[in-house]
């Protein structure tokens, strides 16, 4: 019993760790898309930010400087995306894919040029990474059954960025639904003309939205290379930007359901790791490849089958051009 309980708690713990970049990216995508700008480039922004974080943390010796570099990288890539599709009314999907391809190549090229380790960045020491934070009282509660384990494994012991991701959800919700900026941001994704005729700049609103998205995607990137792992590895995002996008759509462009979807996908991923090499009753041992494919298969099944009618922001993907 105890063993199973611990296993369950550890799986949930892993869920949280896997879901963190998904949550940050889903919130980033949500802000951008609620303003009417499709954000396929989450993947590229996160990858670029992960590289920047690891490289700068290595050179400066500080994970905080690395985080700053990651956030700036995310914001800069957002500006590129925004310049193409807000200022010049380009295709948002093409611009996003361009950012992804650019980052996939550029990170490796710069990595080889600067560090000569096959595109990786040098491993970061303990002092250069975001380390788990032990909450007060973890040791004191060690012997308390159930609660002690839950507190030690699930609540305490994560790095700062995990808590940032969790805090981002209510913050984004509050910003979207309880502030004037949020009202306008939602309006510009539904009917930009109404915003324009109300005397508010559509472009400036959308730029702010994509900048916020870049910032959050930047934190997600820093998490990958300076918190969850201790170096940048080529293409280390491995499609998580797309999964986050899917989770956000699965959550129907709403913060809390999007969080739920991220946790679900994270849980499937954590479960897949747990199930490797485990013989299930009646089935026997499942091939590793099958287990590893499971989260992706389930993503497709969930999105296609259980989603219901998702109503996207009405003006999403449409460049705003004054009609004539």
């Amino acid at each position, binding site marked *: 019993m105890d063993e199973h309980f611990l296993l369950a708690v550890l799986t949930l713990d892993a869920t949280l760790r896997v879901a963190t970049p998904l949550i940050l990216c889903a919130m980033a995508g949500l802000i951008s898309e609620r303003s009417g700008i499709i954000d396929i480039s989450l993947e590229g922004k996160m990858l670029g930010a992960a590289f920047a974080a690891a490289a700068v943390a290595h050179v400066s010796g500080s994970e905080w400087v690395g985080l700053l570099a990651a956030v700036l990288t995310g914001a800069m890539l957002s500006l590129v995306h925004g310049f193409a599709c807000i200022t010049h009314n380009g295709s948002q999907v093409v611009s996003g894919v361009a950012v992804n391809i650019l980052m996939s190549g550029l990170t490796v090229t710069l990595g080889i040029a600067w560090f000569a380790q096959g595109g990786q960045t040098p491993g970061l020491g303990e002092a250069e990474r975001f380390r788990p934070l032990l909450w007060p009282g973890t040791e004191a509660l060690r012997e308390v059954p159930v609660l002690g384990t839950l507190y030690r494994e699930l609540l305490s012991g994560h790095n700062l960025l995990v808590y940032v991701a969790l805090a981002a959800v209510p913050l984004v919700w509050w910003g979207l639904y309880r502030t004037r*900026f949020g009202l306008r941001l939602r309006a510009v994704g539904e009917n930009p003309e*109404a915003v324009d005729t109300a005397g*508010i700049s559509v472009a400036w609103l959308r730029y702010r939205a994509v900048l916020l998205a870049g910032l959050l995607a930047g934190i997600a990137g820093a998490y990958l290379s300076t918190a969850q792992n201790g170096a940048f590895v080529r293409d280390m995002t491995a499609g998580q930007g797309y999964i986050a996008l899917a989770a956000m759509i699965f959550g129907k462009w709403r913060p809390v359901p999007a969080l739920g979807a991220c946790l679900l996908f994270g849980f499937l991923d954590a479960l897949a790791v747990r199930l490797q090499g485990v013989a299930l009753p009646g089935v026997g041992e499942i091939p590793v490849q099958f287990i590893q494919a499971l989260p992706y298969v389930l993503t497709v099944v969930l999105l296609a089958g259980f989603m219901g009618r998702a109503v996207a922001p009405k003006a999403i993907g449409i460049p705003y051009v004054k009609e004539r």
Partner: protein
Amino acid sequence: MSQAADVALLPPAIELVGIDKRFGAVHANRAVSLAVAAGTIHGIVGENGAGKSTLMNILHGFYQADAGEIRVDGTAIAVRSPEDAIRAGIDMVHQHFMLVSTFTVLENLVLGVKGGWRLAPALGRARRELLRLADEFGLEIDPDAVVGDLPVGPRQRVEILKALYRGARILILDEPTSVLTPAETARLFAVLRALKARGVTVVLITHKLREIMEITDTVSVMRQGAMVAHRVTAETDRESLAELMVGRKVPLGLDKQAARPGDVALAVRGLSVVDDLGVTRVDDVGFEVRAGEIVGIAGVSGNGQSELLAALAGMEPFPQGEVRFAGTVMTPALPGDPGDLRTRGLAHVPEDRLGDGVVGAFPAWENVILGYHDDPAYRRVVLIDRPAILADCAAKMAKYDVRPADPHLATHGFSGGNQQKLVIARELERAPSVLLVGQPTRGVDIGAIEFIHKTLLAMRDAGCAVLLVSVELEEIMALADRILVMFEGRIVGEVAGETADERTLGLLMANAAEGDGDGSR
């Protein structure tokens, strides 16, 4: 300005001097000048494309003039954006409402207003002010209703409230009555009078001369981007305004002979149409159209007329009912195929001209054979016969007076009226036995309207069965021999064409028993 003399003591509320605006090759406003006295209702009339909306969008800052000056209360101001206009007290109710349909009334009200970054206090202030304004001007509305759920009339009230809440002293309304029932129009006019009584200056853009005569104090006429006349409404009449708009005499009535109905050409029984969301749009509709008569379907836009037309044309499947036509029967199990229906003599002039009628980017000659491209006359073994089609297109352009008569011009380069003439030429030259026509004169200028109406009557007299769907009551009354009124997908009444009057039809359209607007979608 002639009317400026009447209020010589006060500077005009709005004065436009020498406004000039080009969109590429189109000269939308040519050195336009206009003065509107404070506290009056001023009408601007003109055909489609005369530049009325452009002028008002310049005043509202949505477009910027290439040259010219805007003065408010005698002071020249720079209007570079709607924000500048709103600050100067100028606001506009656009023809297509500028509302966020997923937001509540209150949220829409607050959207353009400055203030703190938290929403709750702003919403509280807006609620109090909304209730006060609603009371003062007779603009009742539920502050918490989601705009997307509201019928058109209340939505327009939200637009007006939005402007008043932002402190508008000069209110521009662009074709405000085009989507309203007669009862809603009367209500709107009552609001405009209340605004005027409290010193608000109103500018009303419309092409309906009857409304100009009813509500305005002064009126300006625009033609081809230029201001051609300013008049005091009481000293002019519809005929002379129409003449000023078009630049020549326009007979306002049609010379129509009595219909000589023949055999039933189109019979509809128990027809229902359900849309993608599962809403029943057409509900158990049945009627007949005989050869040699025009049956008009009147109704406020969105009461199922579009879906009915689409179903009859074979474009929309229907779960119930049957349609008999030229020896065939369409049923849910055996839906009609638009191509097949055409070969059997059914012609269709669709409501949404650019959506369903033509391909805008194609040159005229390609659109003139659209849907008939398999006709042997247009074919040379496997290739299309370009010379033959071009000759055919040129002949149709001449017969239907399409201007410019250039078969190679991209279709969206033609004015709305000339696009419509292309569609009508294509459909009518096939000598159909049944003609379905939706909104034949939407976005079409007065000169072309007259031509289209005469053409439809000629088709009728030649023995064609015509089903006419239009939201323009005047059009229905001028053309139809029998008028069916649709409300919420049902036919709620039939009136003979010669005895129809606007009041009776208006009551049927609003299904008067249910009151103003509540029932419409």
